[in-house]
């Protein structure tokens, strides 16, 4: 019946369980839930940002890093995955119009 002795007592919890600290979910390492890892192929990626728009967890990061492809195409920024939060749902890979994202099994 007794649970978690280290957790706060009833009078230490804000009224009605209200969360007073906004945006605290960033602290939760949801990346640990991942079974498949998305890998972005920077050569194929056309920087359309559809993955960024579709990601339910905001785990697509736009990095201020210019990139030049082998064929000579130049981009002013790159797209990366926030693996601390990415749950590996695969929506980005599904939506990518140029199939630049591969889902690879996690090896732990």
């Amino acid at each position, binding site marked *: 019946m007794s*649970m978690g002795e280290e*957790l706060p007592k009833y009078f230490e*919890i804000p*009224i*009605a369980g*209200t*969360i007073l600290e*906004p945006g605290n979910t960033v602290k939760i390492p949801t990346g640990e839930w991942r079974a498949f890892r998305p890998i972005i192929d920077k050569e194929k990626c056309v920087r359309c940002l559809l993955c960024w728009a579709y990601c339910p967890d905001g785990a697509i990061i736009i990095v201020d890093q210019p990139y030049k492809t082998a064929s000579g195409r130049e981009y002013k920024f790159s797209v990366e995955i926030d693996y601390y939060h990415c749950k590996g749902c695969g929506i980005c890979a599904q939506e990518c119009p140029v199939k630049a994202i591969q889902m690879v099994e996690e090896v732990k």
Partner: protein
Amino acid sequence: MTEVKWKRLPLNSNYAVAYAVKDCDVDVVAAYPITPQTTVVEKISEFIANGELDAEMIHVESEHSALSAVVGAAAVGARVFTATASQGLELMHEILHIASGLRLPVVMTIAARALSAPISIWCDYGDVMNTRDTSWITLIASSAQEVYDTVIQAFKIAEDPRVLLPVMVAYDGYLMSHTYEPVYVAEDPTPIREFVPKNPKSRIVLDPEKPVTMGPIARPEWYYEIKYQQVEAMKRAYDVVKEVDAEFGKRFGRSYGVIETYKLEDADVAVLTYGGIFGTLREAIDAMRSSGLKVGGIRLRLFRPFPYREIVDAVKHLKLLIVADRAISYGARIAGPVAMEIMSVLYRESEKPEVMSVAVGIGQRTVTEQDFVELVKLGLKFLEEKRVPNETIYWGVRGVTYG
């Protein structure tokens, strides 16, 4: 403090509610019309239309939405009000728990009405008693004056930082909602507004400048503690209800207590009931007293939190307590919701009366002075023969006789 000046108006209890809402300067009202509550909201609309009350009236498509709308408004710090009855209260049921669980000081009035099916638009307390476990503070008034006073008190109780729970003020549908009687209302609302000052900063509200999350999911290791906060809040509310009533009395000269007693001190037998029919009981007691019977009366004004201390003290000297309930808990042996409560409170007391549970006024079956006289007679007969029934007496139902 501004001195209060009263005007004596002929009002029914629905209008008394509307005057109290106006005098408390409510910010947001949302309600859906249902007999016999309808004229509460009509009158408030009139006050808003003629500029006597500066409030937002949200028109909604159901009672579920009405309570949801005021829950949202209360969450951003508004003073809110809604009113309903019967099936409307049933449709709100889900949100009743949300309002109390979010600890929002919503005030609502109920013109108590029997539940369908079969359809009844008339009074009983089946609707109010069904909300027993929703963690709403529940007050039951017995006159239009008390309705006005109690709605004012309700805002002060609900918004008290020690409480922060919704408050329901109930009174008899029709028998009070539609009965005109003299009511003193404030000529100028200033003294009332001083009595219930607005202070939304005293609680956590939704504010874009200072974001919070209300109503998050609570996993098994959190839920219990958060609900226990409500248990504690109800305990504190017990004192706050009395404190606010006493302060109201000191300021305005009228107070009611959590129970009201009538000619109880030397009584051997007493009848306990709630709502408007307590007045009928009073007159029955006068009649019985004049024929030499030592009868008294008790009125339950506060149902949640249950005023067990006052009840125990009031009844311990009695030989018999007749609890006249206006609702039925189907399938219970003692089926009167208040009788049940009282018997559980008395269980551990050494000094206690016999308790007789009676259902009266179901679906507004007429209750007269004579009914109370006959009930007392029957109770005394049972007491003398040492056979006070262990189950509820369904008073006046055709096809069943007691004796």
